[in-house]
């Protein structure tokens, strides 16, 4: 099994008749994802350009199609509303691609939608290679296999996946969790899911500077995933200290946030650090071999 998404997951697209929504719906369909319809208020009863039914509301869409997953392509001011609509209609898994959603909107949604797994916002989505994709990831670079991948970045993920695939390391599920300050699903959430997934035999964590998600991930790994081959990469190691979130933010994360802190945390958890994305496949193979021997 992959995590979060497989070929039987029924997916709707919120904003299906918009430019990006329509384009990526076509790509997701082409990849094999079970897109069962879409939502655009006022266009209910029409067909999308892919021949899918369009509904006025998520509730109507869910009632008509039995969808459990949604992919959200709506402008930033409406993303929070779209997530609430999905939640109230009974959707259990929502991917929010939209970039630039106000951080308070995200906090409000995440805090009031218990039981709905939200990926993003400001993320490329996720893919269970060979089965289904929700979001905007370029499917052709992925290959089905046993490596779970989690990344805060979009395009960097593709870079890493491309390397894995070329090295013959297929993937179980790849999740782009998004780069915003508040996101629905963190590294730890994904690691927990991978820990319970039989298909996933190894994991790649693509972190970057800022925040403390990587430190939290390292702590989780140290406690729950000692026997699993894992490699981490930290992007932005040569970025000088930027404008921070301010004093108060710095306290919360204590001395977290620097590449040094993240690297130290992973090393302490026994997780090798790749210097470059292109180093990941070899490191992962080495880790798999050493843990299997």
């Amino acid at each position, binding site marked *: 099994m992959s995590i979060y998404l497989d070929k039987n997951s029924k997916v709707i697209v919120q904003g299906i008749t918009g430019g*990006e929504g329509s384009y*990526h719906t076509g790509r997701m369909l082409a990849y094999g994802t079970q897109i069962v319809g879409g939502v655009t208020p006022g266009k209910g009863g029409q067909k999308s350009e892919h021949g899918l039914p369009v509904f006025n509301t998520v509730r109507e869409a869910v009632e008509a199609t039995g969808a459990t997953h949604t992919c959200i392509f709506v402008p*930033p*001011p409406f993303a929070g509303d779209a997530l609430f609509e999905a939640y109230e209609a009974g959707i259990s898994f929502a991917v929010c691609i939209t*970039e630039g*959603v*106000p*951080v*308070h*909107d995200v*906090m*409000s949604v*995440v*805090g*009031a939608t218990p039981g709905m797994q939200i990926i993003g916002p400001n993320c*490329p989505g996720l893919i269970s290679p060979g089965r289904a994709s929700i979001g*905007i*990831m*370029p499917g052709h*670079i992925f290959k089905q296999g046993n490596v779970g991948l989690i*990344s805060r*970045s*979009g*395009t*960097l*993920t*593709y*870079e890493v996946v*491309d390397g894995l695939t070329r090295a013959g390391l297929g993937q179980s599920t790849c999740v782009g969790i998004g*780069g915003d*300050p508040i996101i*629905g699903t*963190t590294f730890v959430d994904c690691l927990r899911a991978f820990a319970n997934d039989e298909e996933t035999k190894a994991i790649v964590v*693509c972190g*970057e*500077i800022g925040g*403390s*998600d990587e430190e*939290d991930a390292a702590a989780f790994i140290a406690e729950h995933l000692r026997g699993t081959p894992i490699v981490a990469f930290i*992007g*932005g190691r*040569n*970025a*000088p*200290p*930027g*404008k921070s*979130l*301010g*004093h*108060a*933010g*710095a*306290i*919360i994360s*204590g001395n977290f946030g620097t590449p040094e802190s993240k690297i130290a945390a992973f090393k302490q958890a026994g997780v090798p650090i790749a*210097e*470059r*994305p*292109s180093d990941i496949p070899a490191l992962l193979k080495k880790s798999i071999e050493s843990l299997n021997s």
Partner: protein
Amino acid sequence: MNLMEYQGKELFRRSGIPIPRSQHCTTPEAVGDFLAANPGEWVLKAQVLMGGRGKAGKIKFATGREQGIALAREIMATPMPPNRQNPKGEAINSLLVEEKLSIAKEAYCAITVDRATKRPVAMVSKYGGMEIEEVAHEHPESIAKFFIDTAIGYSPFIGRELAFASDLDPGYRKQLPAILASLYHLFFEYGAKLVEINPLALTTDGRVIASDAKVELDDDALFKHKKFAEWHAVLPLDEDEQLATEAGLGIRNFRRFGGTVGTMANGAGLAMATMDAVKFAGGEIANFLDVGGGANAERVRNCYELVVNHTPAKVFFINIFGGITRGDEVAKGIVEALRTTTSRKVPLVIRLTGTNEEQGRKILADAGMTPVETMDEGAAQAVRIAAGA
């Protein structure tokens, strides 16, 4: 967007947080006029975004017109001294003239966004008036925190818990819950990422009052309040931010580092990794540049010109991995940008893969450009060119 103290205090006032009497002045003469009309001793505080005003001599006490004008001139005459993050310092364009408080105690309180819990966190410490990082280092146990459930919002018990848990002077207790209520209202209503009162003063006559104000607004939420557009106009951007904005990029999409290898990638993560790759290949980075999605000809040209006109780049390494951004469109953009730019020409190293990469590579090839295969290869080639040119 970080607000200046006087702007933050304006939001405090609207939200019902007690602030000292004050007047915002943009000239020494205005300061003098105010002091002439208002006898007694006042505080003149430079309005800047940088910290460390006190140490820099940018906060002074004055009485009467003449002293007011003289000290205001002195404060405004020189910019804030530079530090690592602000290598040029910061010019002082205005002052806040403020009631001099008779302070008995100083405390700290703030609300900000906590990534790990995905919640707002309210924080209180009895150590106010010093940098909170310092407090966190020296008295970490003194900072009481409460992670606020947004489904509940702020409720007064939170203020009570924090007052007791941080062992605040009893003089604060009655007023803190209401001040935190107002602070949370401000935080939520205006979409702030940080609201901080440091120090929160307890005066000798028992008032609890925000002696300073630090507010960072969420740029993504500015559209909700028209007032902020006006403030945005007066807030100083640093030069990199200014250039990024002029190029039509996000305020944080461009930063210069003085090296000779210019870079551009789509996505902040890839752009950082591109810099790392250049560094790994032995080069010196000219800049960080995230072109974002939708890299059309105009956008690519703006980015190209931004780098070649404002950095010592000897080569321009374009690293695109297509997701939303489609390879063919980027390729068209690159070709068109290079055809139409009037800026100086530097060699290009292009790496283009992902969505529609075949079409994109063909477009580049038709225009006589040969893309490299990998990021490492591109970085190495760019470094070679920069070294050899």
